[in-house]
């Protein structure tokens, strides 16, 4: 089995670019990844592309070949859709293909155009990740779904909106030097608590923004990296994916994420590590409560203990386990289909010392990327390690 190395990554700036097409966003990120890797587009054997709502945002389906063409790749190209985990599952497929030896060089990425839909339009677009008949027609939105989970968490384990505000404050602070981030401004706990409510108990600063952006990474086999003389010190050593009932109402618990726990268990076993070995993590914080649920399901905290992690400083850049040094979805932004690959690119840069927050992860050898779809009916976990 081949070891899978990350040879290069590319990200657009994340933000509000309503006039930019998905194809142009991905071209920028894809070309940056190819250039950083030093790999010619003609070498790419497959493109794995994540996108969630191209049909709604720009009336575009069949985006695989379109995106391959945009970066000069002529190879089989497939779009993956798993809501906000779309490019997380694309990474998983890319990793598996390289591991089995079916391909030596692949491009994986994602893109999402969202702000052209407006807030109401994007809210409606995102809602198709839930059960249309039994959730969306019943008035649920995604902020509302996570609010239902947050309320259930508070009632089962305790915790408060103030604890959640600390997650937002932390991730905003982490994003300050990140030139790709949508928000590069500090906020305070008071500002977060005073912000307009979106769906009680979640407010504006508990929610990730609506974002345009793209991400890409070139994955290669260790043999290819050696043959081509590529500088690719970070490997994807573990991959896992979990699933759950689509609708929140059909879950046993509202305040736990078994899909994440299953994905983590598989990825840890695959990499031969445990949660205690992880030095730095990028987790899916589409809402502040989502980061709490993630760090518990990933095994970093027992249920009920994750809510205070940011407040206690344990997951800040000065803590024992920095979480979302890139700023997370909260501050870096969440171009839905691009997020999973963006996490992997950010993590590889943190581990290889090329990320603006790398000094806060100095000495880190093991990183974890967690990408979730919907109310975590889909989840992927990838373990990255410095191997060279």
């Amino acid at each position, binding site marked *: 089995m081949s070891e899978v190395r990350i040879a290069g990554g590319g990200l657009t700036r994340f933000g509000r670019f309503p006039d930019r097409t998905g194809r142009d966003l991905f071209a920028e990120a894809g070309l940056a990844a190819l250039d950083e890797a030093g790999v010619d587009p003609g070498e790419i054997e497959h493109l794995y592309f994540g996108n969630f709502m191209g049909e709604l945002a720009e009336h575009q389906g069949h985006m695989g070949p379109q995106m391959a063409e945009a970066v000069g790749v002529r190879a089989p190209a497939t779009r993956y859709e798993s809501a906000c985990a779309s490019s997380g599952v694309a990474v998983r497929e890319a990793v598996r293909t390289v591991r089995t030896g079916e391909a030596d060089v692949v491009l994986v990425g994602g893109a999402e155009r969202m702000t052209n839909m407006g807030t109401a339009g994007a809210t409606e677009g995102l809602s198709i990740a839930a059960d249309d008949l039994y959730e969306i*027609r019943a*008035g649920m*939105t995604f902020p*509302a779904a996570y609010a239902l989970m947050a309320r*259930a968490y508070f*009632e089962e384990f305790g915790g408060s909106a103030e604890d959640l505000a600390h997650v937002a404050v932390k991730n905003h602070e982490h994003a300050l030097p990140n030139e790709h981030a949508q928000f590069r401004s500090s906020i305070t706990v008071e500002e977060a608590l005073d912000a307009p409510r979106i*769906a009680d*108990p979640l407010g504006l600063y508990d929610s990730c923004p609506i974002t345009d952006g793209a991400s890409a990474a070139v994955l290669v086999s260790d043999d290819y990296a050696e043959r081509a003389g590529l500088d690719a010190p970070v490997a994807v050593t573990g991959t896992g994916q979990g699933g759950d009932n689509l*609708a929140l*109402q059909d879950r046993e618990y509202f305040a736990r994420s078994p899909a994440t726990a299953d994905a983590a268990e598989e990825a840890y076993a695959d990499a031969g590590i445990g949660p205690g070995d992880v030095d730095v993590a990028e987790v899916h914080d589409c809402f502040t409560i989502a980061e709490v649920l993630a760090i518990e399901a990933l095994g970093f905290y027992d249920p009920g203990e994750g809510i205070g992690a940011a407040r206690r400083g344990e997951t800040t850049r000065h803590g024992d386990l920095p979480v979302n040094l890139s700023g997370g979805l909260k501050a870096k932004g969440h171009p839905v289909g691009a997020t999973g690959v963006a996490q992997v690119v950010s993590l590889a840069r943190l581990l290889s010392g090329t990320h603006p927050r790398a000094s806060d992860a100095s000495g880190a050898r093991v990183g974890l990327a967690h990408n979730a779809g919907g109310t975590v009916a889909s989840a992927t976990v990838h373990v990255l390690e410095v191997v060279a």
Partner: protein
Amino acid sequence: MSGDERDQGTTGGSDRGRGGRNDGFDDLLDAIEAGEGYYLRCPNDHGSLPPRRVCPHCGARDLDEHPLPESGTVATHTVVRVPTPQFADDAPYATAVVDFGTVRLTGVVDADPEAVETGMTVGATVGESRTSGERLVRFVPR
């Protein structure tokens, strides 16, 4: 499930450009509206909502209709202040997941959104979105 009502084509259905009636779902809304709500139950006593051929909890395939209890309790709730366009004129409103014992339903609570609490007793009914006129599950405090 009977197809008699859907043949009449007079109830339910969506005008959101997504293909009209949804068998199973609209049948259930018709039944709740008539005070004869039901849910599906598998031999292992797991509840689910139609249309289903397989229990989403254990995979059992013999699902029977059972009467939906007259009331349930709010399991979790929120106040939606930023809605989708279909609920633009409804906001703010309370959305809740209500536990009916072996099955749960999600819907809008017909009450002051700030007054909704976990554990509150409600019954299920069918109402409309004030914005789109589309039918939806509503909960009435009991």
